[in-house]
């Protein structure tokens, strides 16, 4: 499962999501799909980067 993070645009305050692996710490500016503002993840109005809870993965067969 690909890990993502949600970013809130500091300009228009719409939310969209990004690849955590590719963009969270890459020092690359995100592009808001709603207003086309460019900003670093640290500049987002808010971030939701919660990962899948530990233990959520399936442990084994019930057979």
């Amino acid at each position, binding site marked *: 499962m690909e890990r*993502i993070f949600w970013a809130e645009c500091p300009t228009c305050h719409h939310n969209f999501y990004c690849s955590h692996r590719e963009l969270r710490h890459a020092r*690359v500016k995100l592009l808001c*799909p709603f207003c086309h503002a460019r900003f670093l993840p640290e500049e987002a109005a808010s971030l939701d980067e919660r990962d899948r809870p530990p233990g959520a*993965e*399936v442990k084994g067969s019930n057979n």
Partner: protein
Amino acid sequence: MPKDLRGFLHELRARPDELIEVDRPVRPHEFEVTALLKQLEDRGRHPALLFQHPTDQHDRPSEFRLLTNLYASRARCAMMFGVDPATPNYELSREFGRKARETVAPLVLSSGAPVQECVWRGSEADVGRLPIVRHFTMDIGPTLTMTHVMRSLEGHYDISFAKTFYTWDPHRMVVSIHTRDLHRIIREYEARGEPAPIINVLGHHPAFHHGSLARNAWEVDDYAMIGSFLGEPLRLAPSVTWGDRFMVPADAEIIIEGEIPPGERDICDPFGEVPRLYQAQCLRPVFQVKAITFRRNAIVQDIFSGFHDCYPLNAVATEGALEMALRPRFPNLHALHMADSGSALMAIYIALKDIRPGQAEEIGRLALERSPVLHCAVIVDDDIDVFNEGEVLWAVHTYTNLQRGITILPETSGVAHGQPWSGFGPSNWGGKVVIAANRPTDFAFGSRSEVPAEVIAQTRLADYLPPAALARMR
């Protein structure tokens, strides 16, 4: 006449309700095309739509037409491959599997390629003049959704669906590739520090695009494989940018010729992908536009991703491949179907005749091993129609032993699971599952109620219902 998109649309016009032509101007980049498609989808209607007067990215009338939803019915897909549209289910899947194993050598034209009737180069080659669809609310922008072609350094061509994102720069797009072979070609060029030639084929006979989904070996030339799907040699012509070093399909509607500069990446996505989830924003290769070539009055094709337009596309190709792979080991395989509810990617229904003990889990596991994103296999008896999801779910709810009939394959099971590069967005998968939904035979168990088939055959609705009521059911 060589097979092309226009010829296929001519065939469709002879059949009622398959193709609707829209004269009123429409603004594809402002969601108007997908707004119409969604309303048809909600009504259970899946016609192909041909927009005669779409606007371009500058909000001006485009010189191109726009076709969408062409693949939304299996009957139309059957017509593409010469299969009787009255039998569009497993007959079509098996035919696809057979065609994927054959090749027909392409035919090279020295001049007169229809797709090069008109050529835009340099500043004239503005992709913003195309009617490009913006599909979904969170999409980063208008997106082209059809097939791309690249040529390996060894000389064979690979054709794959990929998304190309409009960036409001007339000559620069970003291309998001999901397939192993195109990735490999890009890496090969980047290792040499050279730009990689790439073309975006925005319209052709639908078998050209659909056939590209066949799974084949790296060294197979896809231009030859497409000849098998067309049932005739694919006609090729030298490109206007690279000449005979890169051949292009001569009977396409529109081709964008471009290059991927080595190592250059830019932001793309979100885009509402096939599983009806957005793919996360990411970095992908830049597509530098070199030329746009097209036929007069050309038609741009598009796919309504995540809805019926992509179900038969994915389903028929995967069903064909699995039929060829599983049949030798399971001669009692009756039929299999990639479920619409799993976007024709994530869930498969398999019907077997006279299932032996343990066979349900065995075939389910093998099917799941064939694809990283396929994660649910339901095994039923051959009296259950796998193309009827209601019947399959009835079997699950009625026949499955919930303590012993469900096998969960965790990510550590050795079966391939989805990887981030698979590019189909986030999901909540945490394993794979095989559900044995066949009728128990190891103890006395009830049987399904049935109306006598011979009486159904003799008692026709048309003989009993008023004509007006009958007409409303069509």
